[in-house]
């Protein structure tokens, strides 16, 4: 991370994006066992293993790569996730980054609005792929409010840092809201009523994604 922490950024730079991915990798590594534990309650006990396998591969790919723009960088992230994670989260996180990348194009920096547009594109990709709505007890329950919170903050003139913090908090609230829900999508849905009373693992990893973004925009 070469971003100068003393300056409040007004755009998301290539370095910020690299920092975002690096922080996400660190957080996923730290929380790997926890994510898997959550998945063992209502899934198949592999969400942490899956995502950390993918982010390890992303780190290896990024190491030494010199992408020209944000789009190129995040396309690499998305493709790596798609080809190494498997399971449900692979195509979903992969699609999120691929759509984000396509929206970012070859820009070297993105302003708050452009980031909002890219996040929205990522969310749309996840929904198109997984066909989940808010309330189905999936990562969409964290992703949707986070993307909305970012947009609202930017519309209200917030800094990128504040927008990221708001998105992170919204993701966490959204994730917490999955606790009482009965799952309607993904593996947890096989449990019916018995899926209630547990956090959705994918919504927790999505919170990590926005925690990482906030860390990269100090």
């Amino acid at each position, binding site marked *: 991370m070469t971003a100068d922490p003393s300056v409040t950024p007004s755009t998301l730079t290539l370095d910020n994006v690299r920092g975002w991915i690096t922080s996400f990798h660190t957080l996923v590594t730290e929380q790997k066992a926890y994510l898997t534990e959550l998945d*063992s309650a209502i*899934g198949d*006990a592999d969400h942490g293993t899956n995502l950390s396998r993918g982010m390890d591969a992303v780190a290896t790919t990024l190491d030494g790569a010199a992408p020209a723009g944000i789009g190129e960088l995040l396309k690499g992230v998305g493709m790596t996730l798609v080809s*190494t994670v498997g399971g449900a989260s*692979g195509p979903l996180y992969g699609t999120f980054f691929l759509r984000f990348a396509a929206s970012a194009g070859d820009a070297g920096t993105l302003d708050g609005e452009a980031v909002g547009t890219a996040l929205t594109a990522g969310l749309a990709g996840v929904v198109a792929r997984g066909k989940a709505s808010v309330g189905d007890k999936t990562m969409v329950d964290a992703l949707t409010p986070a993307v909305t919170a970012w947009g609202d903050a930017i519309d209200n003139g917030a800094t990128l840092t504040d927008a990221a913090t708001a998105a992170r908090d919204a993701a966490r609230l959204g994730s917490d809201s999955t606790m009482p829900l009965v799952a*309607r*999508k993904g593996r947890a*849905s*096989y449990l019916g009523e018995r899926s209630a009373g547990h956090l959705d693992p994918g919504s927790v990893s999505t919170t990590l994604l926005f925690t990482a973004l906030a860390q990269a925009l100090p």
Partner: protein
Amino acid sequence: MKKLINAADTVVADALLGIDAAHPALRVDHEHRIIYRADTARPNKVGLVSGGGSGHEPLHGGFVGFGMLDAACAGEMFTSPTPDQMFEATTTVDRGAGVLHIIKNYTGDVMNFEMAAEMAEADTGILVESVVTHDDVAVQDSLYTAGRRGVGVTVFVEKIAGAAAEQGRDLRSVAALARRVSDSGRSMGVALTSGTVPAVGKPTFDLPDDQMELGVGIHGEPGRERVPLAGAAQIADRLLEPILADLDFTRSGTIVMLNGLGGSPLIELYVMYAEVKKILDRAGVDVARSLVGNYITSLDMAGCSVTLLAADDELITLWDAPVETPGLRWGR
């Protein structure tokens, strides 16, 4: 955890080495973790590609060969393979007649195969059709959920669609047939113990010594209910009751599979099959063909599942057609 492995994270790669060494009729692409027929199918044969998480052997790699699959993609343990694997397999087995993807209904599998099909059609123009199996009656079916899990009927789809492809039928016809088979099968399983995923190192779920999990999934997903351990006759009853309630099996012949989940010895599977057969006889179900053994497993889980397929003469003829794979072989 006591397992015949080198390390938790090399199990899939190591097993693929063993499959490669054991079966000269197969060819393994270790980089992409794809098991192929070693011979080349003839031009214009529809290609059949399946795949899924590892840990269910012989499914799917053990069903690659003449009269069944052209390629099987091996995912990590209990984790769907990735789209690039299915893309690679699809482009490799296409002989100009297109490729059928056979997918068990799990969100991950469906999405990964979907991306592969999009890639294949966009990048290469190869026609891809898919069939998603969804036969597990333990799961409530509904438009608002992920639907039923795909389990035992997948073996029937791979065999019967494989025979049709070998006979030279076109992609649409093979896909339609595969969907008909998929829709005509129902399954239900029971676990006496949980399997242990090597990377996790302990059983996926705890099951008291005097209980069993009715309607368990092949990844150790909890089932319909946890009930007191019972004898083979009662277990057979509780497996067949929801199957027979869900579909009428008295209107044609039926192909029955009594499948072991990996940790139960064959002698117990035969004991179970005897009970299943008694109930089917009483229910007026005519068993045209049967399979007893380990076909779609869940690592070392003790338990079994029953799959019934309502099979008209066409399906039975295709079932009887020659097949030469490590897991099923007859007629050659």
